[in-house]
């Protein structure tokens, strides 16, 4: 019976000093959890309602964050199976985090996203 039971566990970290919108923070926390191997491909996430109560964030805000992650290809919404982590999400989320850091750093230094894209294109 031990081996047969479904087991899932996850630790989420939210930065208290973060000033970004809450839905981005939710997405960021889950992205980080995926990148750090907290949840693996095929794992089921806690339901949006559970996340909402535990994080003390409105359920619609949580859902918005989750949808962002689905659009990034990290999560899959499946009827009856809830929200699961996609194959290859770990690699993808790591890259996503770095891209976001790059965009944030660029904007701090006064470069727009277009400037950044041009820079990336310019790399030979």
């Amino acid at each position, binding site marked *: 019976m031990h081996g*047969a039971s479904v087991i899932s*566990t996850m630790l*989420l970290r939210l930065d208290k000093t973060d000033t970004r919108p809450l839905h981005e923070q939710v997405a960021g926390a889950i992205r980080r959890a995926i990148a750090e191997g907290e949840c693996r491909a095929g794992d089921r996430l806690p339901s949006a309602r*559970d996340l909402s109560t535990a994080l003390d964030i409105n359920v619609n805000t949580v859902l918005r964050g989750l949808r962002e992650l689905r659009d990034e290809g990290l999560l899959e919404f499946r009827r009856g199976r809830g929200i699961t982590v996609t194959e290859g999400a770990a690699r993808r989320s790591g890259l996503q985090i770095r891209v976001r850091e790059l965009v944030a750093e660029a904007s701090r230094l006064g470069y727009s996203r277009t400037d950044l894209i041009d820079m990336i294109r310019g790399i030979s």
Partner: protein
Amino acid sequence: MTHGDDGKHGDDGKAGGQGKAGSQGEGGDQGKAVGQGDGGDPGKTRDQGEGGGSGREARRGLVGSVVTVTAVTAVLAGLPWAAHDRLPGRLATHWSGGDVPDGSMPLWAASLFPAGVWLVIALALTVRPRRSRPAAHPWRAMTLAPTGVVLVGAQICVVRANLDHADWHAARQPLLGVVTLLFAAVAAAVAAWLLTPRGPAAPAAPAAAPALPEDERLVWFSRAANPWLQLLAAVTGLIAALALAALAAGLAAPAGLWPVCAVCAVTSLAGAVCSSVRATVSEAGLKVSFGPLGRPARHWPLAAIESARAEHRLPSQVGGWGYRLSGLGTTVMLRAGDCLVVRPRGRRTDFAVSVDDAERGAALLNALRGGKA
């Protein structure tokens, strides 16, 4: 219940009883000490016991157990002997409702039989089948106290009923005694429940509480499910639905089908509620929700939790799967293995839930609690 052959026989019985009682008491007490020591190595616990106050307490407990078991044995075996001048050769020992007895024993059997029953029960309750299994003493005391009262009371009733009769057929049913006996047994059980400390006297060592990152909010989720209970819930639910449909269509005799429908519906509901469990640790405390809908749920704010720890538990320790009450406190047991165990403030029993990664959950709970304090 009786006695007989001669004094020698009885003395043998008593001596044997004392010897056995002694070894039982010892077994029981080691069990107690091990239970308090978090199910650790019994050798270790004994060593510790020789040193500090816990050792003295354990020894006092041991002496208490030996004295109690021996005293009850002596009373059971000795009572018919003490009055044997005024008793018939055979004692009436059984009444089937009527006033006239329908069962008897020679004096020696009436003396040794209850004493033997008592020793067997005491032995069965004190000796643990496995070392790893913590002794659940509230249940031991709660069983032993009323058992002792019933046996001693029954012995008194039997002797009184037979007193000054030449033949056991003349003995009358001690109705008043039996009623008094039942009340006394209940009172003994209640007293034992009130007087015994439940669970480990002090909560076992809580999980280490790592320093919390200042500017981070941590939330821990864990879940466990038991596919067998899910299957049970699904199958019984289906049977209940089919039975209901058959009843509605008038296909079957209602008298036979209603109980089936009701029993299956209840089993299905209970199975569904206990088939999966979710635990969440956040700044709001610990939340444990049951079943696919997350209802019902239990919640403890951080302030209501004294300590948290992870423990390895087996269904055999807590009496099976599901929502279990045992000597270890309340356990929501879905599978053998890791359990998150919390000691609610002001309580003497633990609440445990079998979820994965309990060590981290317990550590976070302790850290959050520490941070709040």
